[in-house]
């Protein structure tokens, strides 16, 4: 069990979904791949298909249309899959809360593993969030956390 978590966390393939964001968080995610931050040295890769993904990275406040797509995507992903909410919008809906096309927060639709707040979060914050996810996974059976 321990070995499985270790292998999973050493090669996280990330699928990136923009659920109606303003593009700022998307740019910050791409920044993580640039020479300055280079998350490929931790084995993290951006992949094009949800079937290859280990992490579902979601940016943007969801509206009614993208919520449907998101749910569909989550069901099509091979398990185990981890969900990361990048930016304040998917975390808490930010200033769009109560707006007419909005449905609900992200964690009311699919289970979220890690929240990375910020508008937009800096690349350091995104890397810290991924580190948080890795810590959570490896410490799972040690401390009996969720």
């Amino acid at each position, binding site marked *: 069990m321990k070995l499985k978590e270790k292998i999973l966390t*050493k090669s996280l393939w990330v699928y990136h979904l923009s659920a109606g964001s303003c593009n700022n968080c998307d740019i910050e995610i791409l920044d993580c791949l640039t020479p300055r931050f*280079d998350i490929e040295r931790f084995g993290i890769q951006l992949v*094009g298909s949800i079937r290859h993904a280990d992490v579902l990275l979601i940016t943007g406040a969801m509206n009614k249309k993208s919520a449907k797509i998101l749910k569909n995507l989550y069901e099509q992903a091979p398990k*185990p899959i981890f969900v990361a909410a990048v930016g304040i919008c998917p975390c808490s809906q930010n200033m769009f809360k109560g707006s007419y096309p909005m449905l609900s927060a992200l964690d009311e639709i699919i289970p979220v593993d890690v929240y990375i707040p910020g508008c937009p979060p800096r690349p350091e914050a995104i890397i810290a969030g991924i580190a948080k996810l890795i810590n959570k996974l490896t410490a799972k059976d040690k401390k009996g956390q969720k």
Partner: protein
Amino acid sequence: MLKIVTQYLIFPGIIFSFFVGAMGFWLERKFTARFQYRVGPPWYQNFIDVMKLFLKETIIPRNAAKTLFITSPIINLAAVILVSVMLANNYFLNISFMGDVIVILYLLVIPSLFTILGALSSKNPLALVGAARETKLMLAYEFVFITSLIIAIIKSGNSIMLANITATQILSKPNIASASGIIAFILALFYAQAKLCIVPFDMAEAEQEIMAGTVIEYSGPLLGFYKISKLMLYFSLPLFIISLFIKVHTQSTLLKYLIFFCLYILIIFIMSVIKNINPRMRIKDALGFFWFWLLPLGILGIVLAQFGL
């Protein structure tokens, strides 16, 4: 008996070729990273990737042709294993049989063919686009590779046995030390580039436009089979090029391995240089490049080889 088992399973066989292929793919990633002024992944990254894929769930699409969808990665891997074992046994232990060049040529078509069939069976529209591109690309590069192979065969006195091709190089000089040999080497290099889906010819798996193209619907262990076969091709194609064109004879075994690894790293380096200084070609341009530039070059090479140049 035990010797044969180790020979096919461990040393120049499956495990060795998988290990070297994974290291070769890592080198390619590392070179790319260094070209972009990045650090790049650690050396064990590809092993971890493969192991991870075997821990994941496999999803079979509802509309897919199930039998073909499941068997095509496995047949793909089987063909690649056969090629790697044959080539490695020839290079390191000098085991060969009559007509094995032709067998290897046929077996090298199977991975592309079953990638196409697997993509078609998944019924994903993007996979269909990828399969169509791969089909066209296959028509382009296979013919060019055959001309390159013909040059090597002519150079060895019309022998279709891999051991004879290497033996003539040991007796006189490596094939690459002649005009037609250089042409054939260049053609084979472009063939390997297109076969391995490296950048100027990666339209079939274009990450940015058609997601992962041919393998888009594959997940878990089935994707892992594809990954392993790609890693083993990273070993066997450079090895095929080395044994066809740059076989160098030495007495000591240590020097033999040293030369092999130097040449292997050199070929991987050339491939990653081509990868990093070129954008992805359109399928039309790639076809034009192979048919109207490389194919006449190959025919010129055959003529030169006939005159012994």
